[in-house]
């Protein structure tokens, strides 16, 4: 049963990550390959504060979100100058830089050993320790994220985001301050990633840089794209498919040593297949990089 | 059945190109409405008309850059509605797009070689030598980067490039665009020379109406995507009132 809860927690975590990335990539059309970095920044900030400063749970989470928000703003700046694949490369560079820092800044982050023994969080005096309790917590975060993203994309604010995704120049010509919107979305998206990152740190107790690699970023993007970018339910479906499917395969009896690779191979195949035959994903309305413009 | 008969008929007349009721456009925007015209062997046909009347669209549709929506494009008895530009080049239709476009990062010699991409090495060399005799300006600058040529020289290069594959039909889109007045006459004289020397049929789009009318045998005037007039070029050249009516 505990294993079952664990899988659900993982699904929730990836659903939050994909959902927050959805705001950026699916609704605003800014492909980011740095989402695992923000996830990691959230986890490390919260972990460090809990370990070294013994801050309460909520303070840790809040600080993690603020740190990630500021960094998100910085990563968002290039998006005002470069677009599409160049933006993807820029975020990619940031991702590698962030991983390099987590891995090498030993005095702060503990280097490859990472942080160990992060204390169990207490919410209103209740210590959260079991997988079932964490499932409730992550499910709450998941609903919260869904609520935030849904409220944003269904509002006039979200309408502007979609306009920027489809045709930036048209949005500008209608008086929308595109730069402001892009930066805001970068910040919100990073904050949400950091929020679930912090929860993850408390859940997993020991964190190390290998959880926040480029591959992890690509995995998050895959979830979003396969589920469907630009749809509210896409990220959930994507998370379920990509997290549960390999578990099912494992149950069929693949040896443990090969499981990691075959899981990756599976999502590599899925990614290529979807790009070729259904680039908008299962439920998406948006194909990456396709603007509204018809060729003249 | 009827269609193939028509193609046979087109082959019997001396039409190089026959277009019937052609419809075309970009995306949803229809630009050409039932355009029909024909070009005979060794003939220069001018296409004139105000902006946005579909002159360039017509050339692009013929050469296969944009698809024809409806209608027939017949070249030497073959229906070429869905041919790619590469197939058309092999068949003998070449196209010099607007604004003296050349490969500016390639040398003059390389530009000419690209023009004969589908030919064999030997053919390419002999064709290049033949064509260079028509363009002594280029011969002196073979190794120069094409982007560094003057505007007039670039247009000469663009003309030379499309002549390399020994086309039967040459399509030129505003060869005079952006050139100084003196050069325009030079280019027009060159086009006339090409036509008389090689016997290639030419379909030419131009804004400089009087100059192009003096050069052409027949003229097709488009207005809002429809053929407003298709007839003798010299006659229209003398009819100022008619011209003004077609344009303003």
């Amino acid at each position: 049963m505990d294993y079952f809860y664990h899988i659900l927690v993982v699904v929730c975590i990836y659903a939050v990550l994909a959902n927050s990335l959805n705001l950026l990539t699916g609704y605003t059309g800014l492909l980011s390959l740095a989402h695992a970095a923000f996830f990691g920044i959230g986890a490390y900030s919260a972990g460090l504060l809990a370990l070294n400063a013994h801050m309460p749970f909520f303070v840790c989470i809040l600080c993690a979100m603020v740190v990630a928000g500021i960094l998100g703003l910085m990563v968002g700046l290039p998006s005002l100058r470069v677009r599409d694949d160049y933006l993807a490369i820029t975020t990619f560079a940031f991702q590698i830089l962030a991983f390099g820092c987590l891995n090498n800044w030993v005095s702060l982050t503990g280097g490859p050993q990472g942080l160990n023994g992060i204390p169990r969080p207490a919410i209103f005096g209740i210590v959260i320790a079991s997988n079932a309790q964490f499932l409730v917590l992550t499910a709450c975060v998941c609903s919260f994220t869904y609520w935030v993203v849904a409220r944003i994309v269904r509002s006039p604010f979200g309408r502007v985001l979609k306009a920027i995704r489809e045709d930036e120049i048209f949005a500008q010509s209608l008086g929308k301050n595109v730069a402001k919107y892009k930066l805001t979305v970068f910040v919100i998206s990073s904050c949400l990633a950091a929020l679930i990152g912090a929860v993850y740190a408390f859940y997993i107790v020991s964190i190390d840089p290998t959880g926040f690699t480029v591959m992890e970023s690509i995995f998050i993007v895959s979830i979003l794209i396969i589920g469907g970018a630009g749809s509210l339910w896409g990220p959930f479906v994507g998370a379920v498919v990509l997290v549960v499917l390999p578990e099912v395969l494992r149950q069929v009896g693949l040896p443990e040593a090969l499981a990691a690779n075959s899981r990756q191979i599976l999502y590599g195949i899925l990614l290529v297949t979807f790009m070729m035959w259904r680039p908008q994903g299962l439920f998406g309305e948006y194909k990456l990089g396709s603007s509204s413009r018809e060729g003249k | 059945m009827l269609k193939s008969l028509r193609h046979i008929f087109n082959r019997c007349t001396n039409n190089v190109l026959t277009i019937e009721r052609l419809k075309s456009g970009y995306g949803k925007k229809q630009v050409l409405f039932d355009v029909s015209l024909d070009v005979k062997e060794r003939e220069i046909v001018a296409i004139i008309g105000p902006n946005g009347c579909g002159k360039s669209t017509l050339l692009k549709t013929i050469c296969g850059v944009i698809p024809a929506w409806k209608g027939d494009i017949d070249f030497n008895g073959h229906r070429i509605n869905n041919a790619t530009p590469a197939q058309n080049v092999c068949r003998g239709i070449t196209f010099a797009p607007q604004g003296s476009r050349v490969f500016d990062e390639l040398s003059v010699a390389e530009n000419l070689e690209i023009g004969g991409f589908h030919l064999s090495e030997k053919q390419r060399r002999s064709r290049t030598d033949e064509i260079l005799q028509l363009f002594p300006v280029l011969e002196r600058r073979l190794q120069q980067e094409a982007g560094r040529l003057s505007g007039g020289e670039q247009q000469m290069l663009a003309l030379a490039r499309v002549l390399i594959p020994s086309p039967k039909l040459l399509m030129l889109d505003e060869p005079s665009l952006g050139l100084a007045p003196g050069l325009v006459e030079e280019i027009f004289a060159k086009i006339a020379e090409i036509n008389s020397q090689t016997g290639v049929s030419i379909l030419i789009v131009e804004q400089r109406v009087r100059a192009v009318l003096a050069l052409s045998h027949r003229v097709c005037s488009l207005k809002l995507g429809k053929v407003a007039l298709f007839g003798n070029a010299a006659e229209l050249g003398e009819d100022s009132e008619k011209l003004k009516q077609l344009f303003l």
Partner: protein
Amino acid sequence: MQDETRAENVIMLDVEQVSKDFGGVKALSEATCSIREGEIVCLIGPNGSGKTTLFNIITGFLKPDCGKIVFRGSDLLTLPPHHISKIGISRTFQNLRLIRRLSVLDNVLLAFDQQIGEHLSNLFMRTQASLQMEQRNRDEAFSLLEQVELAEKAHNAAEDLSYGQQKLLSIACCLATRADLLLFDEPIAGVSPYLTDRILSLIRDLPAEGKSVIMIEHNLDAAAPICDRMIFMDSGRIVSEGTPEAVRNNAQVIKAYIQ
């Protein structure tokens, strides 16, 4: 409301000595013109004469090399495009720009200015006000769509419209910004005769609402009856301006077209 006779003569937009160079090609050279309140001006000229460049400069998408543009007292050259739209200049594009996958209604709603719901903080704090405003805008958008005969298609995606309807929609978006100076880039090119009449009559009625229009159009027969003045451009220069009749009979214009 302003006194009409006086408003006729007040200058709304002043373009002075504007030049723009694209890698050695003079797209605009010392273009000078002015637009009065409540006037419809038609900009004509051969391809590459600088008409669209002038539009791009007025709306801030391009910065000129030199010159000055003043709109109702504010200098436009220092402002970014979105700001220029906010102070009352709106435009359409030659290669139609619309958000094709959004509904017709959403396209119009997008264009309204000063929406409470477009500020992030308001989304969570002033939910009620945001919703009310959205409802008001929705009503207004519907009446605008009715005006352009697109109300029935309000919930269709913009890409499902015909080309002419898309042009109408882009004009409706322009109107929804509540701008007073409207720049239309080839509003009737490629449009069916029926919709051409719809669009032209829509434009003709704009001055009565205190709006001015500059439009680029090649179909002179259709455009001439509705415009007060024509400006003819050639090679980046403003060659001639005056009543449509005068410009069309101007020797220089004829010469430029029929060289």
